């Protein structure tokens, strides 16, 4: 076991952390884009479109992320299409993130006073223009703290991708444990690295929240 010194373990974990970070960033970005599109549908005042989006949100919020990963990884394979762990993890996290962000942002849009919509309505602005020029700029301000806060969930969510074989921080931890039989050390380090990724985010979210509350 002398082959695996503390530094070897740590450096291998840190190398795998790159993939956790990449998956988090990519999933958060694509989830955000899909979430924004869904937000327009969610508050479109078109009955069936709102219901459809709501069902989408309910599904991804109401089922475990792990099941969603399995569905993408194994489910798609049933149709004869081989999906790499990376692609399955990216897709599942994108859908999952978009569902939560849509719901968070819908709350922010709802927080904008009705008079703002009415004023924009009265000025003959189209729905898209009302959203784009009047509602979203105001909702954006309120949305920043909870959105940054949610990014912590995405980082932690990527850990599940290890189960379908994606070599992220958690998977590297499992592999190192199998080789070293020092679970407490390995998983303590894994936890510490996750914490080092997440704590700055939640600290930043809290700070934004305070700034926003003072500005009001």
């Amino acid at each position, binding site marked *: 076991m002398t082959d695996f010194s503390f530094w070897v373990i740590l450096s291998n974990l840190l190398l795998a952390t790159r993939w956790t970070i990449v998956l988090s960033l990519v999933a958060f970005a694509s989830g955000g884009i899909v979430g924004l599109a869904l937000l327009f549908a969610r508050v479109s005042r078109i009955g069936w479109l709102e219901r459809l989006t709501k069902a989408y949100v309910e599904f991804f919020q109401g089922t475990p992320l792990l099941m969603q990963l399995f569905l993408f990884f194994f489910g798609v394979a049933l149709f004869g299409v081989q999906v790499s762990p990376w692609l399955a993890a990216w897709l599942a996290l994108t859908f999952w993130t978009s569902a939560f962000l849509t719901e968070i942002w819908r709350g922010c849009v709802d927080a904008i*006073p009705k*008079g703002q919509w009415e*004023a924009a309505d*009265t*000025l003959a602005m*189209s729905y898209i223009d009302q959203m784009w*020029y009047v509602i979203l700029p105001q909702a954006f301000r309120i949305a920043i703290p909870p959105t940054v806060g949610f990014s912590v969930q995405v980082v932690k969510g990527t850990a599940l991708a290890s189960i379908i074989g994606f070599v992220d921080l958690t998977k590297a931890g499992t592999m190192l444990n199998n080789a070293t039989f020092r679970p407490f050390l390995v998983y303590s380090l894994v936890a510490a690295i996750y914490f080092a990724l997440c704590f700055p985010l939640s600290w930043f979210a809290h700070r934004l929240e305070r700034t926003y509350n003072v500005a009001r």
Partner: protein
Amino acid sequence: MSLVSIRDLRKSFGAVQVLKGVSIEITRGAVVAIIGKSGSGKSTLLRCINGLETFDNGSIFVDGIDVAASRKDLRDLRRNVGMVFQQFNLFPHLTTAQNVMLAPKVVNREADTRAKAIASEMLAKVGLSDKADNYPSQLSGGQQQRVAIARALAMRPNVLLCDEITSALDPELVNEVLRVVEALAKDGMTLILVTHEMRFARDVGTKLVFMHQGKVHEEGPPKQLFANPTTPELAQFVGSTMH
């Protein structure tokens, strides 16, 4: 030929009928003051004219546009009908000038320079040229309401609806807003005001509409109605508010 023609308008909220067959004809250039107790249906009536509220029966035509028929797309109607609200409803994230030029730019696709020119023209009209770069939160209530008027005027509407536009203001700020409205009336703008400012209704209005229990109880020239109300309800209402 009326600019705004309202015929037998009926509207219920659930089991409560708030408009029970309202008919009003409004000519171009008229200044119509709608008065009445709260709950008499005045604001609902006003909000039906630009489609912010739907109605159950009757018809409204504004400059030849059928309001009920344009329910799917009210934008043509709303280009012609401006509205000013009790709570101003300015866009807080935009400066005064940006508030005024937003609709000309986005709706009428005016070029930037043209939109800016419109904004400064309208802000000059309401006496706030020096506040163009201020945000709404930096202005007094009276100033905010004047910006809201400028914003509505920027679309060059044929009719301006004013929904209790001085009710949220401190008493000393009411007059600056009323003076702006009076100047618009002199310019020939067609105005429909729901108001509690009886003196203003009498002095500036060309037509008074007294709403009572969801109906037009009395209408006519303001000076005449205020001096000689023909119904006891108007007499009582005028008596309780004109001091």
